[in-house]
C-alpha cells in the first residue's frame, strides 16, 4: 500500500513538475505537508508550520508568474529531472531499511538535501530565468525541510525572504521575451 502510494506520488511529480508553473506549486505543497505532519507528530504545531505554508504560498505565486512567461522545452526537461530525482531519493530511502529510531528525521534530511542539490543543479544547467527561478525554488524547498528538521528559525526566515526576492525578480522580468535572456 505504501509503495503504491509512493508510486502515485512519483508519477504525479514526474508529470506535473515539467508543466508550466506546476512544479514549484507541487513541490511546495509536498514540503509544507511534510513539515506540518512532522511537527504534528511531535505535537509542536507552531511557527514552523506557518512559515512552511507561507513558503508554499510564495512558491505558488512564483508558479503563477511562470504561467505568463514562456518556457522552452529544455527548461521543462531540467525541471522534470529535478523533481523526479527528489522523489526517487524519497523512494530509495523508504525501500532501504535502516534503524527505525530517527528514521523519519533522517528521511526528511535526505529528502531535503536531495531536493537542494537537484534544484541547484537544475538551476546551474538552466538557460533562461524561468528555469533558473524554478530550480532555485526547488532548492529553497530542500533548505526549508532541513531547517524544519532542526527547528532553525533564522534559516526559515531567510528562506522566506529569498522566496519573496525571487518573486520580485521574476515580476520585473519582461513578459514578452523572457526565456531567451
Amino acid at each position, binding site marked *: 500500500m505504501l509503495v503504491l502510494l509512493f508510486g502515485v506520488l512519483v508519477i504525479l511529480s514526474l508529470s506535473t513538475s515539467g508543466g508550466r508553473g506546476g512544479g514549484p506549486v507541487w513541490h511546495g505543497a509536498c514540503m509544507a505537508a511534510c513539515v506540518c505532519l512532522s511537527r504534528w507528530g511531535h505535537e509542536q504545531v507552531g511557527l514552523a508550520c506557518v512559515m512552511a505554508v507561507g513558503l508554499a504560498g510564495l512558491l505558488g505565486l512564483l508558479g503563477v508568474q511562470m504561467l505568463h512567461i514562456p518556457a522552452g522545452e529544455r527548461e521543462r526537461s531540467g525541471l522534470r529531472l529535478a523533481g523526479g530525482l527528489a522523489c526517487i531519493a524519497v523512494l530509495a530511502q523508504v525501500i532501504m531499511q535502516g534503524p527505525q529510531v530517527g528514521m523519519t528525521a*533522517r528521511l526528511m534530511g535526505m529528502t531535503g538535501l536531495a531536493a537542494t542539490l537537484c534544484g541547484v543543479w537544475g*538551476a*546551474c544547467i538552466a538557460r533562461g530565468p524561468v528555469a533558473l527561478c524554478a530550480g532555485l525554488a526547488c532548492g*529553497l524547498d*530542500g533548505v526549508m525541510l532541513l*531547517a524544519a528538521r532542526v527547528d*532553525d528559525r533564522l534559516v526559515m526566515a531567510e528562506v522566506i525572504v529569498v522566496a519573496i*526576492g525571487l518573486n520580485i525578480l521574476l515580476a520585473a522580468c*519582461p513578459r514578452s521575451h523572457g526565456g531567451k*535572456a
Partner: protein
Amino acid sequence: MLPLYASLLGGWMVLVLTALLVTGGTLALRGLLAVLLLILCGAGSAHFPDMARIMTGCGPALALCVWVFMQRPAQATAPRGAGVLPFFLSGIAALAIAFGRCDLLGVFLGCGLVARLGLAIGPRGLDRDGWQVLRMGLGGLLVAQGGLFVLQAGWGHMQDQAAAILLVGGLLLACGVPGRPGPVVAPGWNMEILAVLPVVARAADVWPVLLPVLTFMGCVCLSWAVLSRLGRSFPGDYWTGWAVLAAGLPDGVMGGLPLAACLLVMACVTPSGGRLSGSMLWPPSLPGMAAVLVLVGEMGEMPPVALLAGASLWPVMAERTGAGHGVASWAQAALLMAIGCMVLASAAYYQMGGGSW
C-alpha cells in the same frame, strides 16, 4: 565587546552610505572612510592572541584601502552605486569575520548578493550578468546551507565528508571563485572570499573533516585557474587557490600565518592594476612565497626559508618599476613590499617568541 564592535561597524556602514550617496564621494572622503574602517578593524581584532588572526581580521579593510587608493580615473565615470558597493561589501565582510560563525555566513553573503543584484537590475529586469550572479550566489548558498545542516546533524563519518564537500564547495561557489564568467573582474571581487576563508578555517577546529576538503578544493581552484585561463591570467584566481590550500593546513606550529599571508596578498590584488604576466606562476615570485610559507608551516623550519621568501618578493618590485605607470604602480609595489616585510617580520617574531602572542 562583540555587540559594541558590531554596532560600530553597522554605524560605519550607515555613515558610508549616507556620505557617499549624498556628496558623490571625493577621493579624500573615500580615503578617510576606508582608513576609518581599517582602524576599526584593527581595534576590534586587537584582542586576538596571535598576529596572524589580527592580520586576517584587517583583510577586508585593507582590500578596501587598496581599492580606494589604486582607483584609476577611468573608473570614476561608473554609476554612483557601483562606487559604494565595495564599501558595503567590506563592511559586511568585517562583520562576518567578527561574528565568525558558519551559520551566519549565509546572512552576510546574502546581503552582499542583494547589493550586487540591486546594482544589476535595470529597466527590463536583471541583465545577463545579474542572472549569472543570482545563479551562482544563491545556488552556492543553498548548497552550503544544506551541507552545514548535515554537518551539524552528525550522521557519521562518511556523511560528514560529503557535507563538508558541500559546505566548502557551496561557499566557494557563492564567492564566485571557480566559475567567474569571463576575464572581467568586478570591483570588490575579493571581499567575500576574504571573509569566508577565516571563518571556515576556524570552523575546522570544530569539524576536522573540513581540513582535507579544503586542501582538495584548493587544488581544484588552482587547477581551474591554470587550465581555464592560460592566455589571460588574473593573479587573484591563483591566490584564491593558494589561500584555500593554506586554510586547509592543520593548526600546527605556524598558527594561521600561511592563511594570513595569502589573504593579505589577495587583498592587494586589484582588478585593474594587478595583471602581471606569467612570472606570477613560477616559484621565485609571489605564489612562491605562499608555497614556501606553506612548506614552512608543514616543516617548522623557519628562518632560512623566511629569508628565501623575502628574496622572492624582489621580482614583483622589478616588474613594477619596469612597467612604469607613474605614482600608482610605485605605491602598489611599495604596499606589496611593506606587506611582505610585515609578514616576514611577524613570522620571525613568532619564531623568536615561541608563539607566545
